[in-house]
């Protein structure tokens, strides 16, 4: 070996003395790694499409859910100006935000209302404060009131202020205007609007709002700017610009009209944005409304999570909700407790059945197996509804008990629409998930162990408890994990037979997904559930050891 190494050393400069080298003079380890890497790459390439598919369909939804639970961009995206203004506002003093914030709000809300985005924001903020939804909807409807003040005055001054073409000529680039005038429907896409040079400097607000209007009209609505009169928002902006700026140096198109307006605006009647918003809805003078908007203006929020653990954001930091508003803690605890009960009952009922399955002669065992699997072949809804029939107060079991005289007709047992009903029905539904892993583990325990134990002097019970049972524990572990995790996230059965006291956290999640549409909160609840399951899994691994879990 040393001879070979010594002979090969000169061939390679990176081979250290005493190192094994391959035939080409590279260090052997490196060659081996390279060969293995190639193999691995090839293997990876083969499974790459599947891996990608799994990642996309499995990981991506979970990632999306985790993301949704903190994502909160909608406020700052819909109200960019207002939220920017609010960052300087101190929510704790009790003062309302100043006029510039109201101005921002008006601009934001106007554009959002035209694009019909304001109601979405209203729904989002309504999760945090009731009344927000109607406030936004109402405001979106009456927002023109403010602009109309200026619009009417401009129109009275010069009818052209209510015409599409003069506006387009004033604001648009000359080349664009020509193209636009030459454009016909048959040409396909409209030439994209371009602001006239210097317009942004001259009339900044007007330019910005007109540009927003142009995008909306051309792209969203597909209308020609030569035919569509601008929003009254643009008139408001123009008023503000003319009040603030000097346009005497302007000599572009429609200079006459602009200069005339410039001369007239100082005499215009005006309203402050604050008063205007107040007139639309006096909630805009409410301190808490602004507080809520400010609290939820950052792009990411822990608000959903706080909400999910019965807390809420306040200007002074997170606080617990008042006693009567706390529901999620109770629901989480109830979900845990009932899942444990269900797992426990599944072990109690499933163990003997699995034992029978594993120890009966093949033919009988197969028949029994069919009985075990039968529930899988009937609809979940049917099975759950069957329990309703069985357990309700006028149901089969109560009838039998009354008939036997065990229960008075007047006080029939309440066994459905409560925790008892949910536990019974869910135990029935999840039982196969306990039996199957137990069965497959028990099948691997040779009967000779029991015989050996008995021949050593153990009674039936001792033989079972000291020899058989410990070996079936991995099956119990696997079954328990399956049943517990399934039941923690179960939805349909508690929904049908749970009533008010037997529902799970998942029913609340479903409610937020399909009824209240508060997906962020649903995602936060789901994330907490996931964390709890992972935590339990970890604890299980620490205590029992996950390699002690066998499915067969």
């Amino acid at each position: 070996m040393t001879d070979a190494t010594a002979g090969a050393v000169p061939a390679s400069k990176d081979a250290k003395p005493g190192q094994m080298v391959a035939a080409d003079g590279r260090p052997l380890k490196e060659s081996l790694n390279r060969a293995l890497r190639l193999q691995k790459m090839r293997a990876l390439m083969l499974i790459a499409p599947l891996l990608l598919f799994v990642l996309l369909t499995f990981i991506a939804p979970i990632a999306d859910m985790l993301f949704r639970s903190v994502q909160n961009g909608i406020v700052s995206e819909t109200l960019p100006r207002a939220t920017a203004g609010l960052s300087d506002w101190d929510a704790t003093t009790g003062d309302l935000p100043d006029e510039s914030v109201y101005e921002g709000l008006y601009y934001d809300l106007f554009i959002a209302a035209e694009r019909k985005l304001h109601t979405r924001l209203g729904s989002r903020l309504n999760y945090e404060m009731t009344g927000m939804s109607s406030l936004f909807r109402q405001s979106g409807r009456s927002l023109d009131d403010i602009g109309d003040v200026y619009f009417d005055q401009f129109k009275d001054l010069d009818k052209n202020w209510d015409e599409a073409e003069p506006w387009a000529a004033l604001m648009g680039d000359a080349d664009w205007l020509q193209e636009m005038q030459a454009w016909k429907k048959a040409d396909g896409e409209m030439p994209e609007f371009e602001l006239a040079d210097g317009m942004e400097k001259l009339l900044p607000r007007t330019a910005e709002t007109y540009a927003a209007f142009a995008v909306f009209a051309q792209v969203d609505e597909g209308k020609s700017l030569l035919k569509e009169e601008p929003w009254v928002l643009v008139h408001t902006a123009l008023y503000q610009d003319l009040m603030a700026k000097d346009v005497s140096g302007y000599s572009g198109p429609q200079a006459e009209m602009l200069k005339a307006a410039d001369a007239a605006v100082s005499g215009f009647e005006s309203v402050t944005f604050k008063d205007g918003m107040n007139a639309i809805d006096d909630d805009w003078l409410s301190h808490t409304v602004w507080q809520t908007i400010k609290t939820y203006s950052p792009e990411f929020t822990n608000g959903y999570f706080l909400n999910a653990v019965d807390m809420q954001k306040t200007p002074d930091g997170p606080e617990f909700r008042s006693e009567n508003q706390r529901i999620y803690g109770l629901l989480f605890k109830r979900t845990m407790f009932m899942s444990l009960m269900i797992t426990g009952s599944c072990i109690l009922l499933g163990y003997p059945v699995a034992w029978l399955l594993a120890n009966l002669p093949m033919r009988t065992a197969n028949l029994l197996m069919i009985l075990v699997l039968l529930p899988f072949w009937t609809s979940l809804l049917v099975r759950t509804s069957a329990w309703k029939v069985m357990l309700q107060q006028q149901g089969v079991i109560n009838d039998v008990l009354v008939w036997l005289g065990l229960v008075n007709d007047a006080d029939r047992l309440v066994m459905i629409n409560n925790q008892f009903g949910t536990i019974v029905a869910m135990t029935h539904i999840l039982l196969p998930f306990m039996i199957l892993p137990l069965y497959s583990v028990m099948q691997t325990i040779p009967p000779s162990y029991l015989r050996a134990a008995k021949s050593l002097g153990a009674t039936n019970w001792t033989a079972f408890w000291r020899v058989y049972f410990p070996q079936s524990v991995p099956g119990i572990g696997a079954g328990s994990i399956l049943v517990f995790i399934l039941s923690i996230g179960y939805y349909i059965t508690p929904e049908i037979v749970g009533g008010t006291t037997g529902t799970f956290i998942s029913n609340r999640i479903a409610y937020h997904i399909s009824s209240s549409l508060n997906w962020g909160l649903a995602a936060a609840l789901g994330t907490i559930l996931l964390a709890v399951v992972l935590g339990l899994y970890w604890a299980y691994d620490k205590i029992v050891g996950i390699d002690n879990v066998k499915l067969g």
Partner: protein
Amino acid sequence: MTDMANQDAFVAFERVQKSYDGETLVVKDLNLSMPKGEFLTMLGPSGSGKTTCLMMLAGFETATHGAIKLDGVSINDISPHKRGIGMVFQNYALFPHMTVAENLSFPLEVRKMGKSDREAKIKRALDMVQMGAFAGRRPTQLSGGQQQRIALARALVFEPELVLMDEPLGALDKQLRETLQFEITNLAHDLGITVVYVTHDQTEALTMSDRVAVFDDGRIQQLAPPDELYEKPQNSFVAQFIGENNALDGTVQDISGDRCTVRLDSGDLIDALPVNVSKSGEKTRVSIRPERVEFNPQLGPDAHTLEAEVLEFVYMGDVFRTRLRVAGRDDFVVKTRNRADQVRCAPGEKVRIGWLPEDCRALDAP
């Protein structure tokens, strides 16, 4: 052996029958009695009912008919854990979730023995099988032979008087088997325990046992010490099953005292010892051990010899194995010791063979 009084028998099967399905008898009329301290082996082909007998003795199967007695008391209705019978299983059945020491401690714990007693006994049992150093291991961390030793120690640790072993060495390689065979017999002898041992390896049966019960078809075909079994098989099944055997079919021609003449199906006449035949004209199968056949025999003047053609000559070191065509059969084997003056036949050669009449046993025709 059948005349042994049942009263002094330690283990006795009396007219025991067993059927699993109510249609066929797996064990048919089993009678067996063993004195204390005997090492008895049940030997037989697969499916002959050996395990069934053992399980009935251990109490895991109930006899359909008949009585099984232990120390004179019928144990038919005693449950297995009260019988106090040690048992070694073919797959060892060591409890995988317990260490070696815990496995050994188990039978003592269920007997409510104190801790110090237990430890002393475990240590003694482990030392007995030379496994003292392995007390803390799990069964899965042991080799097959080591597991077997532990299984043995566990069956012995609570000092049973009767130990049952069902093919305990079946899964081991030849060398280890031989070592363990030796150890088991020695242990059984030293401890004075009674052992019922099941195997279908005849060498194992012959080397280990005081007596061997050859099973076939749910019956004991012969119950005898190893030498008797080999040299004096009582029927053609035993002759064929134990050791190498030459069988020739024929009809009894003439019978007088301890001699008879048999006319083989090929027409040749041979001399034999009548064992299972009583009158002339009876069908019979004669059995001759390969090492009892002589080439060019110097027998009495009226002795019959046979013409044979050498088919094959195999040099095996200590012995020569010659295959011959005799009386129309191609599978007649002769074994001769490797001596300087021994004949070495060449294939194709014609030779005469013969034997002493007492070495040729006329048994039942199958």
